[in-house]
């Protein structure tokens, strides 16, 4: 019965132990979950370890926990280190994290202590050294309940050992990390080029035929229309497409009439328009409105050149000087106001983009994603 039970238990450990309740990472180097340190001790050790991390990139993380959840202390420490990512993932200082885990003597059982080393520290801090630290340095203190002293003694010895292996400041690591991030861009570019190719094909396919069709649509006289239709037929444009282009002609003629530059031009276009199918009553209606139309066009001009053009146009269509002057002034004022607003918007977007690139190097940035392979040692007290 016990054998079945223990093998079921072991099965749970062999496959991912998702039922385990490991604490979430705090991005702090000292995590006194069991409450055995004083506030001052936590603060002091935190300062020291964060400074050590900033100046050498090595991360020593202290954890005290009340309950090991049926795991061995070395197992728990390895899983915690892996979950929190203590240590750096940068190639230069890879996996340089250490976890010191203490479970004090309490209602859950006797005391346990473990030192778990990241892959990158296993070389300089081998299992035998960790065992020696635990048995000779930490356990004598732990047996007397001097938890902080035990941790301090271990940390003081571990720091120079780690520094012997890795000694990179955070800025050095950040710079080398930026170089590494070029990543797998080859697929990205393949897709981009494919997309560009597709777009180009769609755009340029049938350019010639579209030109012929627009020749029909924009014809300004019956003779032009005939020529354009003939050219389109030669260019193998389908009849259905020719017909639909022809259908657009009256409306286009109406637009040209609306934008006529002078009454004389209007008259010429009007004759052609009638011949090409634009209704006579529509033309007459438009003619009647042209004086007001040109005045409102002037008022809504959007550049100085347009104002000049539209002024002579309005004059040609019979507006009186006073009205023209007023409309032109209004237009110019609007243009000036628009220019000021645009300048202000440009200044605002410039300043916001430059302020977003703030520096990120100030302060301890948390754990760097290091990995733990099960190295280290453990002991009981």
């Amino acid at each position, binding site marked *: 019965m016990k*054998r079945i039970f*223990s*093998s*079921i238990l*072991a*099965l749970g*450990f*062999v*496959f*991912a132990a998702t039922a385990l309740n490991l604490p979430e990472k705090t991005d702090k180097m000292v995590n006194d979950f069991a409450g055995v340190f004083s506030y001052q001790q936590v603060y002091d050790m935190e300062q020291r370890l964060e400074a050590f991390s900033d100046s050498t990139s090595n991360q020593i993380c202290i954890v005290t926990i009340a309950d090991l959840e049926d795991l061995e202390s*070395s*197992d728990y420490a*390895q899983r915690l280190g892996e979950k929190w990512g203590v240590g750096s993932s940068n190639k230069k200082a890879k996996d340089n994290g250490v976890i010191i885990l203490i479970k004090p003597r309490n209602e859950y059982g006797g005391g346990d202590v473990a030192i778990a080393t990241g892959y990158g520290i296993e070389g300089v801090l*081998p*299992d*035998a050294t*960790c*065992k*020696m630290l635990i*048995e000779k340095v930490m*356990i004598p203190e732990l047996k007397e309940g001097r938890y902080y002293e035990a941790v301090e003694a271990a940390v003081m010895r571990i720091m120079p050992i780690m520094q012997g292996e890795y000694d990179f400041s955070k800025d050095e690591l950040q710079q080398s990390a930026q170089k590494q991030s070029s990543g797998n861009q080859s*697929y990205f570019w*393949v*897709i981009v080029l*494919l997309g560009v*190719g*597709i777009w180009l*094909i*769609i755009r340029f*396919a*049938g350019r010639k035929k579209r030109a012929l069709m627009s020749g029909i649509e924009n014809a300004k006289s019956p003779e032009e229309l005939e020529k354009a239709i003939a050219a389109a037929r030669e260019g193998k444009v389908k009849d259905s497409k020719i017909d639909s282009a022809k259908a657009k002609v009256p409306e286009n003629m109406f637009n040209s009439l609306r934008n006529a530059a002078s009454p004389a031009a209007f008259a010429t276009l009007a004759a052609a328009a009638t011949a090409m199918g634009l209704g006579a009553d529509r033309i007459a209606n438009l003619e009647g409105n042209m004086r007001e139309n040109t005045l409102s066009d002037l008022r809504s001009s959007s550049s100085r050149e347009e104002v000049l053009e539209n002024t002579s146009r309005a004059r040609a269509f019979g507006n009186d000087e006073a009205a023209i002057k007023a409309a032109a002034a209004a237009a110019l004022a609007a243009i000036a106001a628009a220019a000021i607003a645009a300048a202000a918007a440009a200044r605002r977007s410039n300043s916001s983009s430059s302020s977003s690139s703030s520096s990120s190097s100030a302060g301890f940035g948390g754990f760097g994603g290091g990995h*733990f*392979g*099960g*190295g*280290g*040692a*453990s*002991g*009981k007290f």
Partner: protein
Amino acid sequence: MKKLFFALALALGVSFSFTSCDYNQLVEQQETVNSAWSNVENQYQRRMDLIPNLVNTVKGYAAHEENTLKEVVEMRSKAASITLNVDDMDDEALAKFQKAQDQLSQGLGRLMAVSEAYPDLKANENFLQLQAQLEGTENRIAVERRNYNDIAKEYNTAIAKFPTMIYAGWFGFKKKPYFSAQEGAEYAPTVQF
């Protein structure tokens, strides 16, 4: 009409390039599984390398325990003789491999338990070092086995999913076996000071 044809051809080409992405991903995943497997093998090998030294050290102090020592040596050579080809692993082969290694674990456990009775041995620096190394190696073996299982699970899921499952077989992507739970191998508790 011609435009439609072009567009279709282009779409087909793009979709093929995406499925070739899938193949490449399978290749990458398989390599990850292989490297995870070689990590496991490395840790087992590390344990093998520790054993001769351990046996010799214990022999110096606990010559009476000849039987236990002989057992360990035998199991070690048995475990060393079972090699696995990572490309050709199946459930059976891995089960055999694991059984041999687990038996070795049990033998080592007995050896450690027996050593408890010899205070001179327990005080020997070399023995303590070896013991620490052995504990560390057992930890590492457990970690790498767990990693391997996780990675193999991802790979097996990927080749079983649709549409990858259709062509995974053509290219020779086979399912990888898992490590199962150790049969009640409780390792000896650590020496206390």
